[in-house]
């Protein structure tokens, strides 16, 4: 499946359908519909602080989605992205905890470590795939849980707070290991820049480089690609390692700009959410930014649903799920109709 492909009107039709479905749900629960939607906007964009928070949520989501674009384009269902985010976070936390250094050195070291940590976790998925014959879907899924297990072990064991055994998290890092923020906001320009840079890099790789073109061709047709002289296994491994490395950066931003410590749920589910974003974007990296931003608006705006309307916190997720489900199903039905019409024509 290519995620969403096709003209903009059918995209809009799907968005409309999902809004209607969500509205029906709201009506069913006697929730004011119009207010719900306006709160979503004001709650996520209504002030500089809120805009900043929305941007900060979009950072890991954008990075995770960018990572997924890399592997999806190479035809790989990298469900291991969650684990790779976690591995990046663990590696960055290790640096933050172990190295006493000025922030100018520490932050780049954390970024580098997160990159390597994620890459290592991606490498495991890749080796399992090309050496062990384990499909990346199950290899990745398994390693997601192994990564969580690793964090739980660290948090309750070697990295636990003194006298405390709680899975809640490690001691906060020294402030040198925090991404600097804009005075008075939680917005970290560094984190936002990392996410934009990553997307730009992915766009560059797929628009401008041989490497990206080769990954795409492997994703589209591994047989032909091999005939063209592309060493497919090596590229698959590279894609998973690179995807993992990028995902690792999401882990870095999570520990260094959001939590300032390692917590078991450090990935925040952004890996799985990223899969939805990428499906909606039809694997197109530039669409990742607006869609991830919109998802972040839902995530942040829906806090207001809870605070102002007393709505349940899961409504935002229901909205996102409905949206993706309708877009994916509607575009597939459109394709089916097209195939039918073509078929009828050739029969005539």
């Amino acid at each position: 499946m290519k995620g969403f492909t096709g003209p903009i009107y059918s995209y809009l039709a799907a968005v409309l359908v999902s809004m209607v479905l969500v509205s029906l749900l709201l009506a069913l629960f006697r929730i004011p519909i119009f207010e719900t939607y306006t709160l979503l906007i004001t709650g996520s964009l209504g002030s500089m602080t809120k805009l900043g928070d929305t941007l900060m949520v979009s950072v890991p989501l954008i990075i995770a989605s960018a990572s997924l674009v890399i592997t999806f384009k190479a035809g790989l269902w990298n469900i291991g992205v969650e684990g790779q985010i976690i591995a990046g976070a663990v590696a960055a936390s290790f640096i933050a905890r172990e190295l006493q250094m000025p922030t100018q050195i520490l932050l780049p070291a954390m970024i580098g470590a997160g990159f390597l940590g994620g890459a290592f976790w991606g490498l495991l998925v890749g080796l399992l795939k090309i050496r062990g014959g384990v499909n990346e879907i199950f290899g990745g899924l398994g390693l997601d849980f192994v990564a969580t297990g690793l964090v739980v072990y660290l948090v309750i064991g070697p990295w636990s707070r003194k006298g405390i055994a709680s899975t809640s998290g490690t001691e906060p890092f020294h402030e040198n290991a925090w991404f600097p923020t804009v005075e008075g906001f939680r917005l970290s320009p560094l984190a936002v820049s990392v996410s934009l840079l990553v997307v730009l890099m992915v766009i560059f790789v797929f628009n401008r480089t041989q490497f990206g073109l080769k990954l795409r061709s492997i994703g589209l047709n591994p047989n032909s690609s091999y005939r063209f002289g592309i060493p497919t296994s090596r590229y698959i491994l590279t894609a998973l390692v690179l995807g993992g490395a990028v995902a690792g950066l999401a882990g870095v931003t999570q520990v260094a700009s959001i939590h300032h410590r390692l917590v078991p749920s450090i990935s925040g589910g952004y890996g799985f959410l990223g899969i939805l974003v990428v499906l909606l974007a039809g694997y197109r990296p530039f669409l990742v930014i607006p869609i991830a931003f919109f998802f972040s608006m839902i995530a942040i705006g829906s806090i207001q649903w809870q605070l102002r309307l007393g709505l349940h916190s899961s409504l935002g997720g229901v909205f996102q799920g409905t949206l993706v489900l309708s877009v994916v199903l509607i575009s597939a039905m459109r394709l089916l109709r097209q195939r039918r019409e073509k078929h009828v024509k050739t029969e005539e």
Partner: protein
Amino acid sequence: MNPETLAIVISYATPLVFAVIGETITEKAGVVNLSLDGSMLLSAMTGFAVSFTTGNVVLGLMAGGLISSNIALVIAFSSIRLRLNQIAVGIVLTLFAAKLSAFLGQDFVRKPGPSVQDLHIPVLGDIPGIGPILFQQNLLVYSSYILVGFFFWFIFYTRQGLNLQAVGERPEAAYARGIDVNKLRYFYTALGGFLVGLGGAAFSLDVKLGWSDGHIANFGWIALAIVIFGGWHPIRAALGCYLFGLLQLVALKLQPLFPQLSQVLPIIPFPLMIMTLVFINHRKIQYLILRNNVFGRFITGRAPSALGESFQRL
């Protein structure tokens, strides 16, 4: 560990047995239903909500089964009719159903409600040793034994079971023998989904009574892993579930000795799944699979050849 503790292993693993058997059947037919975690959540919620409202546990179980069976049908429809990737649809449905369960279940959180009643089987339950472990449980647990036995018999010893395997193994050959491949796939995906839903409902009506957000404790993902660990064989899969239950308890027993490790033991199904996959993909092992008969099939297990592939007739 005393018999009573082992009895907990059995009852704790029971929802997992339902889900694993369900998913095994679905995958035997060649379809992967990746939405298990979401499906089980939604059916756990539905099962409890219906039982709570009607006071009838059986109705709750059925409702849980039906809702999950409908999710499974969405996957079947998207892959068979719309030719969408099963994995993609599965993931979307997982997240969607999980959130929906939290939203729809908000009025039922932590309410005391009906639960499945224990029923000790007179003679069997008094057998020293295994009696208290296996037969001082409830009807749901006994049904899970019957289910495992039934599907073992059904898959390997009946006409319909053979057709089920045929569809997942080589759909074009199945079609050539007059089997309606896609109809069976719809059916077994829905049936598998129903059992998965029973598992979800069993969780909230028997293992962890009531409803709370994220109630089923990753059981969906664990079930997916155990289907593989179980080598797509109902009995081995059930043993996998009990092993998982046992590990949970071992983890508790180890807490005073290895407090850090004990917390991590519950993830063991996942490395086991990966190791199983490496194992069955190993060339020498594959040789074993091909050479050995019943024993080899049990020990090695293998995925249905056409798992995840769609079928279109000529």
